[in-house]
């Protein structure tokens, strides 16, 4: 039994990496994840990742922000302490618009980004779970879970055939821990 935990196919070109993914999928090798220094368009469709639902979260937060602002202004200006300003109406909806708008945007932005951080497990101080340090620089990395995916040499060959510049057999899942 080899001690390899993960097989990494390192490509220096996103198109070759796409070929590598095709090669692996033709041979029914499941892909654990793909790490790239930039977003690769079309990759999520190829790997069958569903569209992100963050837009729904953004909408809900926006709605919440708008309602919060409207309620706050209604409560303060109309209900709690109505002020007589030149006999003008207290419940002047046009004056509400800028506040409702601003807080809709504010809540959308913060709510959506917080949801993004939560769902992607990003927060300050989180130990980076990096499989290859050059994945943020110039390497496009396909990670394959070595467990159950044998023989490793065949996977290596599939990746090499697609143009991988290097194939790593890592004994550790993440290289970033000291």
């Amino acid at each position, binding site marked *: 039994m080899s001690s390899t935990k993960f097989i990494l196919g390192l490509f220096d070109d996103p198109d070759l990496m796409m070929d590598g993914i095709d090669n692996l999928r033709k041979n029914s090798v499941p892909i654990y994840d793909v790490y790239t220094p930039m977003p690769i368009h079309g990759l999520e469709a190829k790997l069958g990742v569903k569209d992100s639902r963050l837009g729904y979260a953004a909408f809900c937060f926006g709605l919440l922000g708008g309602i919060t602002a409207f309620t706050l202004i209604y409560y303060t200006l109309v209900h709690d302490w109505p002020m007589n300003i030149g006999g003008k109406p207290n419940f002047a909806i046009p004056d509400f618009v800028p506040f409702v708008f601003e807080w809709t945007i504010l809540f959308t932005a913060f709510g959506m*980004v917080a949801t993004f951080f939560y769902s992607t497990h990003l927060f300050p101080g989180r130990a980076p779970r990096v499989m290859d340090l050059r994945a943020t620089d110039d390497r496009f990395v396909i990670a394959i879970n070595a467990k159950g995916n044998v023989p490793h040499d065949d996977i290596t060959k599939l990746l090499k055939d697609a143009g991988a510049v290097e194939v790593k057999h890592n004994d550790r899942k993440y290289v970033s821990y000291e």
Partner: protein
Amino acid sequence: MASHSESIIREPLVTGDNITYARVTNEVLFPVENKPNTAWWIGFTIAFLGALLWVFSISWTFWFGLGEWGLNKTVGWAWDITGFVWWVGIGHAGTLISAVLLLFRQNWRNSINRSAEAMTIFAVICAATYILGHMGRPWLAYWCLPLPNQYGSLWVNFNSALVMDVFAISTYFSVSLVFWYTGLLPDIAAIRDRAKGLRRRIYSVLSFGWTGSLKTWQRFETVSLILAGIATPLVLSVHTIVSFDFATSLEPGWHTTIFPPYFVAGAIFSGFAMVQTLLLVTRKVLGLENYITMFHIESMNRIILLTGNIVAFAYISEFFIAYYSGVEYEQYTFLNRFTGPYWWAGCMMYGCNILMTQLMWFKKVRVNIPISWALSIIVNIGMWFERFVIIVVSLHRDFLPSSWAMFYPTVVDVSVFIGSIGVFFTLFLLFIRVLPSIAIAEVKLLLKSSSEQSKKKILASGHVDPEQAEFYKQSLTSYDSVELADYE
């Protein structure tokens, strides 16, 4: 798809041969990973002295009160609000570049959005200092917020444009910050993965554990798109609301319905000028000519020309409406801009913003770096005078001639203004030392589609209409970062 290549007739967005992904990382991170050069130290020293001047003069203001400024009973708003509107306006270009140009899929934004967004944040910080500064008692700044208090509760007046401003500016600042920082995460991770020791730990914390996995990128792109979508109306709303500070009053010269679009156009105008001022120097000092190319410079100049003419149109409408309204106070205010004691301020405003901008119609001017740089400074001076004219020149002639007065800035007024420029440049210079000044990941996206080397490949393949190839070569002649000999 990453392999998609663009039409040959489009100008390259990244120039130079052998630009690899690694080289992009190396070149952009060079100032972050190495000791700063002399030019940086000189700039930083001057900027930091300016920032110290700001600390001194604002402390002076807080200690002795607003009486230290040149304000009087007639001109109760002057350099503080001028500075505030000027800085907020400058900030607008960053959001415009990062949000509006993203929605329009303008790929040239990729190499300038990072520093422009940073500029937005620093400019809004400078603007916010004026808000706090002009309160006189800044420790009571929380009175602007709708907080329950011991008066029963006496809430803030939500009918006031100034309270709208509090909400707009704070939202604008925090949303810009979130937008900027989220975009920075992949690049901070790139620094982290190359760093050692303490630096690595610091950037590790700052990177939030970014890995660049498939789902991270997918969500990141969704977040960027939605943030761009909401930041676009936000940026328009902010200067609209800033213009409400004036437009909702009854003061002749302020009481105009054209103010919101006029202010927004002016904001973008001055903001792009500031981006131009900063980037023309940054690209030279940091050696980023291959990423911020002549196409970027010319595109920004075109936007300056466009928005400058929108502003010019708004100026003309103001004059026409003053004449057409038949209101003599209104007419006097506008004539007074040329015939009153502040005629020179009016000339600076109209001269710098309308007349000088017309030079941008000539391509020779748009692609000339020293002239572009000088013009960008002139625009910023002109836009400062625009706010000065709107605020002080409208106020100094009261309805009652016995109240007519002049505004004379004191040393403290001038120091606060010069100091705020120092604060801005200190922050900007620190930024280019500790964070990548170009969005690395986004520039990498351009390499296969719109770089000069990819265009060369298309030319070499021979499947190009010769007329289009000639057009492409012609477009390169203005570039300062292209070896034209390669195309002979």
